[in-house]
């Protein structure tokens, strides 16, 4: 009994049709849940199964209050019953369980027991449990921004509330007053870890009682009526008040955490018995009979109907096609915008040169004028005349307003995760985030960044996060650790994100325009040392565009190819000029502009001409992106080489703050010239 909420649903007064529908759903969910381990035993699939038994009542309620015409549901990996209640068919549950191509969550690409149906706003979420709280907050921001009906419902176990990002999500929803219902399904354990090892309060929702604009409801998640009444109130209140609610539902876990866990190793017999006694479905059935709402015969008939449905679904599952191995490269990248006016990303503009920062600021404003569904947020980036730590977004809030241009909290994961969430609302939405004040502060957002790289592939193309992540990157400013480092070497290991790193104002403008018009995520790395540098200033044609994966030859030559990007492009051009003046050689400098996808063609064509190649970047040589470039050249162009591939980059150390240390660590013209001369002499 929850005295906080209206008692709409009661055993004696709820109409019989509804009561029997619920019984059918509960039995159907439980039957599928009970059957799941058999598929593993028979080596058919479902190798990950987190049983829902014991959570049945709250999950029934989540599914019943979810309205797919307006709400967004983020179920977690134990939410089988939630998804059945929300309308997934037994076939759809089994297709996911045994990872068939027909799996509506994503064609067997994601782990089993991760049920979803993006078409119905039942979102495909991570195994990194609870990180969808940020996505729920993000989509709720869109619901609020677009004054749409509905709420976001996020569901998770109580142990995953320990994750820092959950606090970021709930704090953000409280601050922004977002219509999200966060459901904590509390079964007392995080795998084998009891909740006393997780938090001081036994009911973790109590940890949030100090937050403003947040309502917290506690309910018995094992009781159908308490769960239905509480979830009904939660959704209604969140939508009417445009504020978040936490529903803390007491459940029991009747079985082990999953099929790789053995709960008898850490639960005594008394506990194993009492969790059985708490079975929500048994209780519901007793109530139906006790209060003459259904006869034993009626309920038995439903049990038989469920058996037949599950049997038929099993047969359909066994006949369903498996995913094809040749499909693995489908949906890694969402469609990129194909430049129309400047298909190669080249121009012959002769107007007054603009600084790189002007190119970025101007392009952002132009694209924001063009597309009303564009948004930008980040840290320290929208307060009166200040527009970002480097003022790249200067003037944007004044022109486009606080709904489209705003500060995020000092919480990088929230900045990134809510971008992922908000972009789910509408395919027209394009989001730019300043992921962190400086690129090497981006690491706290890494789990959301990784998550976002998965989305398009994992959903088999059903959801593309249309996000441009802007980061001020690199050194030569005496910034030291967290202000002068490069992170692209690490991030380029992740499929699903395009990475661009311009060196000049025109390319910065053109690539940013393409990013903002493309689907999918682009990591936009900005060499902050060049923001105001005259060296990087160029004429920028109106509506300039640069396609992804198209390098630019910044200086032609026939004796040596230098492949580079970012800050070091300018150093390489300087070295080439110096060596040319000496009459020693003509060096071709390729500015990659885009790291992923890599323009292999331009590199190989140049090497065919020069037979020598030097790869230069600011990031570390060891583990840097240049290693991938060098290996690619070795693989496909070894026959054109007359000398070994050389690389120049940072030492394998952090970047020191003292200028003497910085100089010793980062590449410069001296180091590049030395390597070039060695190669030319080989």
């Amino acid at each position, binding site marked *: *009994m929850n*005295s906080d909420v209206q008692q709409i649903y*009661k055993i004696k007064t709820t109409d019989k049709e509804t009561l029997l529908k619920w019984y059918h759903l509960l039995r159907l969910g439980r039957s599928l849940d009970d059957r799941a381990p058999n598929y593993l035993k028979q080596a058919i699939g479902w190798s990950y199964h987190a049983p829902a038994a014991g959570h049945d009542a709250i999950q029934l309620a989540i599914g019943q209050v979810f309205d797919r015409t307006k709400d967004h549901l983020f179920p977690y990996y134990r939410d089988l019953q939630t998804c059945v209640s929300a309308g997934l068919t037994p076939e759809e549950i089994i297709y996911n369980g045994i990872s068939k191509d027909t799996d509506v969550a994503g064609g067997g690409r994601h782990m089993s027991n991760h049920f979803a149906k993006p078409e119905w706003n039942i979102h495909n979420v991570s195994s990194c449990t609870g990180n969808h709280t940020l996505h729920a907050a993000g989509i709720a921001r869109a619901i609020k921004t677009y004054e749409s009906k509905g709420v976001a419902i996020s569901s998770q176990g109580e142990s995953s509330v320990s994750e820092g990002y959950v606090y970021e999500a709930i704090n953000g929803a409280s601050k922004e007053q977002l219509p999200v219902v966060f459901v904590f399904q509390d079964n007392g354990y995080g795998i084998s870890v009891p909740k006393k090892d997780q938090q001081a309060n*036994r*009911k973790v929702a109590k940890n949030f009682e100090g937050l403003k604009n947040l309502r917290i409801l506690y309910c018995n998640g094992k*009781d159908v009526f308490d769960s239905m009444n509480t979830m009904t109130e939660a959704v209604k209140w969140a939508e009417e008040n445009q504020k978040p609610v936490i529903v803390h539902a*007491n459940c029991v876990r009747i079985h082990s955490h999953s099929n790789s866990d053995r709960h008898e190793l850490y639960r005594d017999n008394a506990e194993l018995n009492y969790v059985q*006694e*708490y079975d929500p479905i048994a*209780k519901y059935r007793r109530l139906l009979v006790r209060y003459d709402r259904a006869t034993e015969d009626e309920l038995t008939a439903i049990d038989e109907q469920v058996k037949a449905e599950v049997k038929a679904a099993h047969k359909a599952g066994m006949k369903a096609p498996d995913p094809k191995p040749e499909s693995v490269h489908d949906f890694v990248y969402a469609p990129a915008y194909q430049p129309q006016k400047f298909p190669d990303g080249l121009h012959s503009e002769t107007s007054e040169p603009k600084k790189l920062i002007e190119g970025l600021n101007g392009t952002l404003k132009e694209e924001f004028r063009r597309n009303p569904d564009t948004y930008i947020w980040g840290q320290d980036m929208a307060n009166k005349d200040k527009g970002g730590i480097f003022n790249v977004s200067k003037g944007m809030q004044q022109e486009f307003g606080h709904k489209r241009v705003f500060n995020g909290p000092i919480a990088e994961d929230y900045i990134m995760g809510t971008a992922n969430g908000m972009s789910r609302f509408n395919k027209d939405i394009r989001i730019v985030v300043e992921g962190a004040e400086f690129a090497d502060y981006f690491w706290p957002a890494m789990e959301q960044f990784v998550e976002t790289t998965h989305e398009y592939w994992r959903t088999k193309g059903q959801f593309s996060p249309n996000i441009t992540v802007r980061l001020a990157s690199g050194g030569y400013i005496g910034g030291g650790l967290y202000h002068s480092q490069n992170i692209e070497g690490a991030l380029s290991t992740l499929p699903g994100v395009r990475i661009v790193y311009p060196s000049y104002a025109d390319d910065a403008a053109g690539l940013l325009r393409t990013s903002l018009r493309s689907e999918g995520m682009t990591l936009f790395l900005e060499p902050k040392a060049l923001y105001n540098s005259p060296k990087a200033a160029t004429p920028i044609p109106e509506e300039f565009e640069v396609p992804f994966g198209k390098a630019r030859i910044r200086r032609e030559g026939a004796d040596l190819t230098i492949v580079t990007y970012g800050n070091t492009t300018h150093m390489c051009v300087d070295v080439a000029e110096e060596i040319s003046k000496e009459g020693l050689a003509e060096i071709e400098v390729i500015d990659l502009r885009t790291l992923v996808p890599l323009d292999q063609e331009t590199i190989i064509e140049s090497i065919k001409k020069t037979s020598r190649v030097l790869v230069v970047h600011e990031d570390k040589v060891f583990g840097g992106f240049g290693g991938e470039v060098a290996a690619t050249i070795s693989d496909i162009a070894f026959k054109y080489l007359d000398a070994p591939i050389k690389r120049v980059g940072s030492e394998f150390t952090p970047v020191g703050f003292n200028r003497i240390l910085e100089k010793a660590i980062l590449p410069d013209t001296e180091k590049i010239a030395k390597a070039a001369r060695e190669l030319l002499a080989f």
Partner: protein
Amino acid sequence: MNKIGLFYSFNTVKTKQQVNKIKKSLGEDNIEEKNVEEITQEEFNKYKNYILAIPTWFDGELPNYWDEFLPAIEDDSFKGKTFALFGGGDQKGYPENFVDGLGLMADFIEKRGGKIVGLTSTEGYQFESSKAQRGDKFVGLALDIENQAALTEERVSKWVEQLKKEFK
């Protein structure tokens, strides 16, 4: 004193032990035992005086057998009826919800006009919060076999003596 209806689950062990003590102290002739798991609305309503055994389950819940019975009497009036509640809890294991079940049941009864007697002092217990707490009193007798078994006998005896005065 009117006959007392003593309602508890006959399938319990610890509660049954306390029931036996109460029966002995109050005198078996004054009491009729009823199994909550089987009673009907009519059987419940025929008394003026009640003792209800309400152990708290889990993080502050009523046992299923009470939860499932309450809808039967939720539309009834308890005006003129007197209730005494007792039940077990675990103040160390569940300090945030110690004997919440007593509080939940007291609320249910009072909303329907019933009178609660047999309130006891919270002194001697250590817990963080309880729905059964009203000022410095519990709305019944709180027992903690897990942590204070040695105090149970005396607590029951004192409570029964109190009930003899408070029941009419």
